[in-house]
């Protein structure tokens, strides 16, 4: 009997820990929350409205709150008791007040209030030096509210996204943005510039491939100094697929002998080591197992699929046994999210869908259901995946919250997203 109980406890723990299993029944109830506008007319009304919408959106994306869709008006220093909120059993009220100082810095004052009894939970102040970066003010407000209530971390909202966008035939720009595409700044333009990749956790530099120097050439660009350093070039193709956690090693896809293979590049010495040697296509290397091995895409079975190999050598191991066209993937611990082409009919409902697998179980979880869903990238929290979605002629950034089983889309106004990183 005791053994039976232990087995049940173990099984329940195991199921809860495995994100490949869709959890549809939640025990914990998400608190209801409403956002209030407390800003006066001295602040740009458009920015204020967008800021409030972003706070609401961030709280929804966190999936840890029951968020009231529209914001209300409430005096910042006035009463915290709002009868309608009491009547509707709304649990939390977030009062937000934007202010612009003489040096054009944007400030946000925030009060988090228990809407049922009017007591102040906390009061915080935020500031950003450039007004057009107000989305990050909103993201910080949401992150702090979420952290206070112990929701699954959403610190990734404060990270920059870097992406390449096609602007015409053989032309693309590299842009840095927030995860909602509300803030955007073009970093590189002119010619073909693709596959940007953050060089470190500080997000002060990127690697990217330029086609403007004869051969595809990999550059390291410091975003703050503007210093651009040539790293390597290769005939055929050159992509920085991954950067090790400490930034000391890169996984490059190059074709010095007209053959696309994965190479390990040492950023200190500049030395390169060829990791794969298949005569077909090997691309998209991704560090795993504390940077001692790579997961990569290969067509060695006659179609693109996902494989694993120790950097020190040894055999190549197939990782995914589902689908016949799995051409991109991302890894986080024991999890792999990959894109699988499911129909040759481009006009079909589903063409590329994302799937989640664990390397330790046989479960497969389908994460998307329609359109072209590609280029998945795990966030550092291991619970959130950023991806590119195309529906019709619209290109969007997608955010998947794995544990909440929810996804969100942020469309790009014009152009087609080529690749992303965060």
């Amino acid at each position: 009997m005791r053994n039976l109980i232990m087995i049940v406890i173990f099984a329940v723990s195991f199921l809860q820990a495995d994100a490949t299993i869709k959890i549809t029944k939640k025990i914990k109830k998400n608190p209801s929350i409403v956002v209030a506008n407390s800003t006066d007319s001295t602040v740009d009304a458009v920015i204020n409205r967008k800021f409030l919408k972003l706070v609401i959106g961030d709280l929804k994306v966190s999936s840890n709150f029951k968020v009231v869709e529209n914001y209300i008006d409430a005096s910042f220093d006035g009463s915290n008791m709002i009868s309608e909120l009491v009547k509707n059993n709304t649990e939390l009220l977030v009062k937000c007040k934007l202010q612009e100082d003489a040096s054009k810095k944007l400030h946000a004052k925030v009060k988090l209030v228990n809407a049922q009894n009017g007591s102040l939970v906390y009061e915080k102040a935020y500031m950003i030096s450039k007004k057009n970066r107000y989305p990050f003010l909103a993201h910080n407000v949401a992150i702090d509210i979420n952290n206070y209530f112990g929701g699954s971390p959403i610190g990734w909202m404060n990270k920059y996204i870097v992406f390449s966008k096609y602007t015409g035939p053989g032309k693309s720009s590299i842009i840095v943005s927030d995860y909602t595409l509300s803030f955007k700044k073009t970093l590189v333009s002119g010619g073909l510039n693709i596959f940007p990749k953050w060089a470190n956790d500080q997000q002060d530099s990127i690697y990217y491939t330029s086609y403007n120097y004869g051969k595809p050439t990999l550059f390291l660009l410091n975003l703050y100094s503007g210093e651009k350093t040539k790293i390597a070039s290769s005939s055929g193709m050159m992509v920085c697929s991954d950067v090790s956690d400490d930034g000391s090693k890169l996984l490059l896809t190059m074709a010095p002998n007209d053959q696309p293979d994965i190479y390990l590049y040492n950023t200190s010495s500049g030395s390169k080591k060829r990791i794969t040697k298949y005569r077909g296509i090997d691309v998209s290397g991704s560090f795993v197992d504390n940077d001692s091995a790579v997961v990569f895409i290969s067509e060695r079975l006659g179609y693109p699929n996902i494989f694993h190999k120790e950097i020190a050598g040894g055999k190549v191991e197939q990782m995914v046994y589902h689908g016949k066209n799995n051409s991109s993937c991302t890894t986080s611990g024991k999890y792999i999210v990959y894109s699988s082409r499911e129909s040759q009919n481009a006009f079909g409902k589903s063409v590329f869908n994302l799937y989640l697998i664990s390397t330790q179980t046989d479960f497969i979880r389908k994460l998307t259901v329609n359109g072209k869903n590609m280029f998945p990238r795990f966030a550092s929290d291991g619970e959130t995946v950023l991806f590119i979605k195309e529906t019709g002629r619209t290109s969007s950034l997608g955010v998947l919250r794995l544990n909440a089983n929810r996804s969100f889309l942020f469309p790009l106004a014009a152009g087609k997203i080529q690749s992303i990183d965060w």
Partner: protein
Amino acid sequence: MKKSMIFSVSLCVALMTGCSQKVPELDTDIVNAGLDDVNTNTGVDSNIDKMAGMDSSSVSYATEDERIAAIENELQPIYFGTDRYDISVTESEKVDLDANVLNGSLASDLSVNVEGNCDEWGTDEYNYALGLKRAKAMKDSLVAAGVESGRLSIISFGESKPQCYDHNAECWQQNRRADAKIILQ
């Protein structure tokens, strides 16, 4: 001076070729029809015929760009199947024609970049690698058809340089291709 000399030589060769074939007044359609036969049977000779098919009196290129444009106008893209990088029998005949153009008097001193391209179905590294393998397949076929390998380099543009922007199968077919492009000196 050097350029003028090259153009003069090219002009003379073209004129001489034209005279030797005695076809300056040939109707273009007939020449093209004939070319297919010659090409199938004799390979390299077809190039001479094709060059002769041009109106010799108009072979005059004021600039290197014009000369390159004239050559590239003769080159044909090689098309590929979905997710494929092998060259079909039909397309390989076009590679032979391209090889003849590249080995012809007008182009034989020039280096060539073979560009591999893909349709819009993919935004990842795999698509760029697929484009590269298409370029490599065309390069290998050109070498097999007699083009010196040292003149050829390859590059992949993935899905970044579509020829056609419509969303239909015919359009995507046009974008799954490899092109031989003259490298500007």
